[in-house]
């Protein structure tokens, strides 16, 4: 019954979406305000209908109604409530419904928010949003219906893949989707600006918060994805350059470039076409991500497998790509730059540089990801590139970007000169040199790139700290405030800038974690008997045999091992193999003893003779904790920057012509 209702709601939503589209076109043709309001109501209705449909699916999942195929496939009676709910997005059909849900809610919010200054843009914004709604509703009703019946009576479901029974997998998909779908809003505004020949920065102003929040969700999604891979997959790392991982990293890179380059348009009226191109690319890349995951055209462990829906997404992607790029070319005359570069060394040109690197990194990752496809098509043989390619290419580019991140904030607007620049980065630069030397000599492995990255990280962090301190001093000088007053006034009056700095510092920490774990890996695998010890990186672990316990309905076999370092007992680790009732194969659960310095990462791989002998795999991942700390800093910084109210408002502009 609920299944019928859920499906019916989707069908009605699709009809309303098509109807609203027609009405919206009428509103543009006639200019009659009533059509506009009707379409607005229609978008509200779509959101309500898709919400009802989603609620129906949740209800079916929670009540374990196995007459629905989706419920049968991804849940079982014994599954805990939380994972029954998260099974909503465990499969293809459900995740598409989640996409449609987020999209319809975003669209309704955009269409119904009162923004007088966007009056001219809104009809076209709605139009673009409705096209997206229609497409995803079509996909979810006709190609991947989550309410399809099982066909036959079943007693219990097949259960949720144990790998997905991890807190990271509750948050990761939903945040990635909130991010992915969020970019449709700035895209829709950009298209509307192109159509209406509004060459100002209205579309950017109106969607700034959307863009930044979408970026934040995508960042969180990627971080949780990494955390999931780290704690669940048990191979010791957090990022494998898998095509599906790349698919969510790509729009992040271009969106990061976009967030930065729009600042130049806001202040200087430059980069107009570039910004349009960036948002188009970002939006198309979000579609590309869903295509990769659903088409199975590229070999990945995370893909859904080969299916016909791939063509559906490819078709839509192609359509939107051609339409938006065509529109941009057609309108390119309208979007003349208001200013030209005044100097090679200026804030403007440094932003151009950071954009080049970010987009370059995105291109390299994209190329590496689709190369098997392209080469198969051109030469008939699929040429693949492995993680070394991505590390060798993206590594240098992104670490250069990290260095630029340290320089950009201090470069002057319009015209800077070299002397001034050197002066303002001199002491952070000098202070970071000992860091390079220290890391180089302490590690003493002759490797140079890791110490260099540590140095860059130190440099960038110091520049930011210096900027904040100097800003405080200047403010206190200009206004005669106390230092604390000046500091608070400084950061709260321009939350955009200082929130951004906080995000930069978070990124620096994440970079440290990446270079720590990937640059200095220590790993050992050993088969031990009871009483034997394993030594790695100063730690001594003693194998004391296996124990068993039951948790909920899962059988857990674990090896509790005391960890000793420098003669001191640090505690113990207990890596597990978990036996889920519906799955024949046990799942590895990593045990991590973490600290600020490094993670001791222990996996119980296998055993024989009833646990007399066991094979243990241990990794030491230096600085790993800083990835999560940096991630939280990034979240706090972003929220600080966009939290509504004074100080999150637009920055001033340095344009010569009246705005």
């Amino acid at each position: 019954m609920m299944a019928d209702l859920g499906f019916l709601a989707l069908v009605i939503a699709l009809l309303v979406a098509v109807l609203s589209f027609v009405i919206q076109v009428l509103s543009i043709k006639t200019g009659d305000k009533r059509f506009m309001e009707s379409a607005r109501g229609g978008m509200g209705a779509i959101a309500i209908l898709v919400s009802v449909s989603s609620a129906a699916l949740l209800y079916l999942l929670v009540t374990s109604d196995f007459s629905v195929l989706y419920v049968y496939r991804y849940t079982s009676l014994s599954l805990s409530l939380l994972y029954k709910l998260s099974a909503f997005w465990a499969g293809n059909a459900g995740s598409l419904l989640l996409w449609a849900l987020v999209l319809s809610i975003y669209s309704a919010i955009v269409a119904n928010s009162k923004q007088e200054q966007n009056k001219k843009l809104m009809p076209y914004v709605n139009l673009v949003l409705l096209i997206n709604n229609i497409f995803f509703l079509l996909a979810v009703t006709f190609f991947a219906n989550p309410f399809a019946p099982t066909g036959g009576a079943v007693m219990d479901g097949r259960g949720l893949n144990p790998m997905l029974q991890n807190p990271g997998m509750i948050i990761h998909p939903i945040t990635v989707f909130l991010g992915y779908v969020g970019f449709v809003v700035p895209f829709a505004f950009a298209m509307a600006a192109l159509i209406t020949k509004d060459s100002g920065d209205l579309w950017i102003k109106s969607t700034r918060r959307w863009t930044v929040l979408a970026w934040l969700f995508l960042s969180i999604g990627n971080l949780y994805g990494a955390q999931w891979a780290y704690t669940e997959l048990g191979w010791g790392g957090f990022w494998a350059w898998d095509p599906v991982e790349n698919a969510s990293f790509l729009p992040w890179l271009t969106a990061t470039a976009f967030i930065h380059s729009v600042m130049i348009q806001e202040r200087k009226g430059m980069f107009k076409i570039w910004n349009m191109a960036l948002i188009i690319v970002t939006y198309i890349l979000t579609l590309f991500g869903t295509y990769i995951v659903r088409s199975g055209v590229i070999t990945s462990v995370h893909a859904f497998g080969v299916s016909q829906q791939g063509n559906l997404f490819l078709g839509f992607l192609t359509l939107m790509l051609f339409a938006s790029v065509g529109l941009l070319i057609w309108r390119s005359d309208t979007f003349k730059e208001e200013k030209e570069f005044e100097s090679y060394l200026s804030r403007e040109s440094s932003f151009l540089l950071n954009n080049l690197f970010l987009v370059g990194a995105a291109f390299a990752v994209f190329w590496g990801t689709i190369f098997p496809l392209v080469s198969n098509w051109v030469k008939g043989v699929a040429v693949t590139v492995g993680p070394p390619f991505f590390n060798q290419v993206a590594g240098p580019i992104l670490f250069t970007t990290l260095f630029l991140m340290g320089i950009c904030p201090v470069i002057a607007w319009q015209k800077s000169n070299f002397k001034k620049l050197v002066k303002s980065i001199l002491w952070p630069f000098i202070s970071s040199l000992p860091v390079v030397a220290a890391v180089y000599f302490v590690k003493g492995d002759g490797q140079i790139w890791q110490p260099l990255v540590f140095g860059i990280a130190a440099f960038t962090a110091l520049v930011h700290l210096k900027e904040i301190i100097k800003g405080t001093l200047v403010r206190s000088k200009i206004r005669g405030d106390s230092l604390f007053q000046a500091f608070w006034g400084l950061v709260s009056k321009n939350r955009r800038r200082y929130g951004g700095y906080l995000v930069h510092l978070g990124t620096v920490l994440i970079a440290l974690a990446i270079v720590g774990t990937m640059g200095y890996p220590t790993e050992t695998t050993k088969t031990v008997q009871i009483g034997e010890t394993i030594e790695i990186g100063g730690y001594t672990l003693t194998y004391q045999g296996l124990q068993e316990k039951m948790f909920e309905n899962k059988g857990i076999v674990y090896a509790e091992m005391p960890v000793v370092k420098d003669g001191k007992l640090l505690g113990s680790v207990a890596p597990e193999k978990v036996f889920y009732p519906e799955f024949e194969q046990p799942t590895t659960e990593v045990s991590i003893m973490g600290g600020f310095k490094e993670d001791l990462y222990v996996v119980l791989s296998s055993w024989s003779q009833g646990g007399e002998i066991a094979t243990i795999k241990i990794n030491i991942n230096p600085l790993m904790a800083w990835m999560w700390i940096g991630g939280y800093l990034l979240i706090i910084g972003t929220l600080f920057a966009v939290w509504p109210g004074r100080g999150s408002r637009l920055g001033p502009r340095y344009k010569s012509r009246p705005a």
Partner: protein
Amino acid sequence: MSKKLKMTLGALVIVAAMGYLMITSFSSSAGFQVSISDLVEKGSKFQDDYLLVEGKVLPETVVWDSTNIKVEFVVTDGVNQMPVLFNDVVPDNLDHEDGAEAILRGKYDHDGGIFRADSVETRCPSKYEAAED
């Protein structure tokens, strides 16, 4: 030379540098995606290439050597079979009774008739949607 031209040239230099980085890294880490049948039938062609191979694991062939930390198993594409050697621990789900879908990366030893894998990944089992549709 105008400023604009100079800026464009500067940008081109950077783009070229990134392109160079891509091309050089490419040749050092590119490999081929081939089928098991290709390997078994004309393996000598791929002797030194880095390869990506997909196949179904025959669960009864999985042999785990705990003293030397290595696992051997046989994969099939439905036509041909190919033995695999992996010097690491057994990945989760490798000996799944339905036969796990494995993605192997490594090199093919034509003389020994064995695939030496650097990495073995098993596909997320609940995502076998296509197999059932």
